[in-house]
């Protein structure tokens, strides 16, 4: 019986040893046939491997590692990864590294989504094309983005005026008093379209996403004549003000952007008549208004402001 037991032990050892040794070639074997030769006139298609490589030093650089099934979407992890990927590294020699499923983005998704979000855009502006009077504006716009590229909004602006150098020079040098109107307020219903989208690197370090938005709208405003002779009363005019414009939006955070743009407000304005006589012609504001001269005006404004987005965050509905 004793020899029999010994044979049993030996058998067990051999089986165990066999299993261990058999496991080595099984783990070290390639999981698929060797790559096929590249078709003539073209590059070899990279292989797609559905599981990990066996040994690090045997990684095929042409392989695309599919890895394990991707975990459920984690927004914070995604954003963290996106922020890390925003760090620009100075160009230099690149070590060839194998790709993995996580590294391949068929279409890089936008880091900022606007659809079904509301933009609160407080802004300031200034006149660009009037050499007699400069207006500064304080205003804001609320826009709702129906999609990522289409929005509808309402804006309002309050105007503060200041005179430019020629307003003084013309009376002094040419002995002629300029006829100038100032603007008091304006409002508009606007439609926005975002056709241009891009990103850029600042000093090779930080990536900023931006876009260009075109705007067209219709609104109203009020102008007021500045009487050449201050003894006369001013009159105001209600203006119908269509507008067109373009602005650039730079994305700073999920809830914050910087907007810079130009808007052309177009309207037909009424100006003080040349002749106003105290106690006579055009003495009253109403009479002066009824005899006012009209002119088509392009009031081009430069506008800048911060936009705050509600909701302050968003979630992607598609894969990376």
């Amino acid at each position: 019986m004793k020899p029999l037991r010994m044979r049993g032990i030996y058998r067990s050892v051999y089986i165990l040893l066999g299993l261990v040794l058999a496991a080595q070639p099984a783990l070290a074997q390639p999981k698929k046939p060797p790559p096929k030769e590249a078709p003539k006139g073209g590059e070899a298609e990279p292989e797609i491997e559905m599981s990990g490589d066996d040994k690090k030093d045997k990684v095929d650089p042409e392989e695309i590692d599919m890895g394990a099934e991707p975990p459920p979407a984690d927004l914070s992890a995604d954003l963290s990864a996106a922020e890390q990927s925003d760090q620009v590294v100075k160009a230099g020699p690149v070590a060839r590294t194998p790709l993995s499923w996580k590294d391949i983005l068929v279409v890089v998704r936008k880091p900022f989504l606007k659809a079904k979000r509301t933009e609160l855009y407080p802004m300031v502006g200034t006149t660009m094309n009037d050499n007699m009077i400069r207006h500064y504006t304080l205003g804001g716009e609320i826009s709702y983005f129906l999609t990522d590229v289409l929005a509808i909004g309402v804006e309002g602006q309050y105007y503060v005026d200041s005179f430019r150098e020629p307003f003084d020079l013309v009376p002094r040098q040419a002995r002629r008093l300029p006829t100038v109107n100032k603007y008091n307020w304006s409002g508009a219903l606007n439609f926005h379209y975002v056709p241009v989208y891009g990103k850029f690197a600042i000093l090779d370090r930080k990536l900023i996403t931006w876009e260009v938005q075109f705007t067209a709208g219709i609104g109203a405003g009020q102008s007021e004549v500045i009487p050449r002779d201050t003894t006369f009363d001013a009159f105001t005019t209600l203006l119908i003000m269509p507008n067109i414009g373009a602005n650039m939006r730079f994305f700073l955070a999920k809830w914050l952007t910087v907007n810079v743009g130009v808007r052309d407000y177009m309207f037909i304005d009424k100006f003080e008549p040349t002749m106003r006589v105290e106690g006579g012609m055009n003495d009253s504001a109403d009479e002066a208004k009824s005899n006012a001269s009209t002119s088509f005006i392009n009031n081009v404004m430069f506008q800048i402001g911060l936009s705050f987005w509600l909701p302050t965050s968003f979630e992607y509905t598609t894969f990376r």
Partner: protein
Amino acid sequence: MIKQSITLLALGAALVGTVETASAERRTNELAKDVAVRHRRLLVKNRFEVAPLFESTINADFRHIIGGGLKLEYHLSDMLSIGAIGVGSTAIDTKLVSRIMERLPDAPDPMEPRAPSKDEYSSRLNEMPLHGAAYVSLTPWYGKLAAFSQAYVAFDFYFQAGLAFATLKSDCPTMICSDTTPGESKPGPGGETIPPDNDPNNDPPLNDGQRLGLFLGFGIHVFLNDFLALDLTIRDYAFDDNPSGADYNANLAVTDDDSRFLHHLFVGVGLSIMFPTKVKRTN
């Protein structure tokens, strides 16, 4: 002995298993150490840029300056370049000048002694037949954009600073600008002293000649292909000037004191051609 062998084998198997587990671990993402933009086209580095351009003033007070010229720039690196620009221009009266001229008398009016005639007013406005700058340019931003989801183009933003120069010209004939000693007394016949006429409308405008000043600019290249780019720029040529050529400081004479440091804002559109036309790429 047998037990020892079995133990050794078991340890060996465990060791092999550990090694296998380690090698089967997921690799770290080595792209984290990689450059952000691979195979980046070096669209400007070590390239010479030649850009025929068109330029016009923005919101000029008295005369629009409109002209064409050339920009030459060498890009020392992707961020730094040096260049020069020269523009030949013509001048067009602004609407303000047109409106003032409508209201001025054709000839000096004794009833309005201080008001200039049409000729007195218009002949002292100056022009800028030639202007330009030598500058250093910094291109801190570069990127790409998609327009209408169709056109994907590269672009960069740049900022420029340097020295501006301008040639100013005004043609006031001596029959109009006849005062040879504006604001000063002059000897008269019989040893008399003739006091200043206190009429700036017959004084020479003193707003021509060469000017040196400061230059600032910023713009954008939108690359249409590897060697052609649309060049949109806002430029500010700042130097001493008195565009109206009239009395600015109200001392009833046109003197050098009426010139002041003014900003001349221009918008420019050009087509940049990059040499060599073949573009390099990073690894």
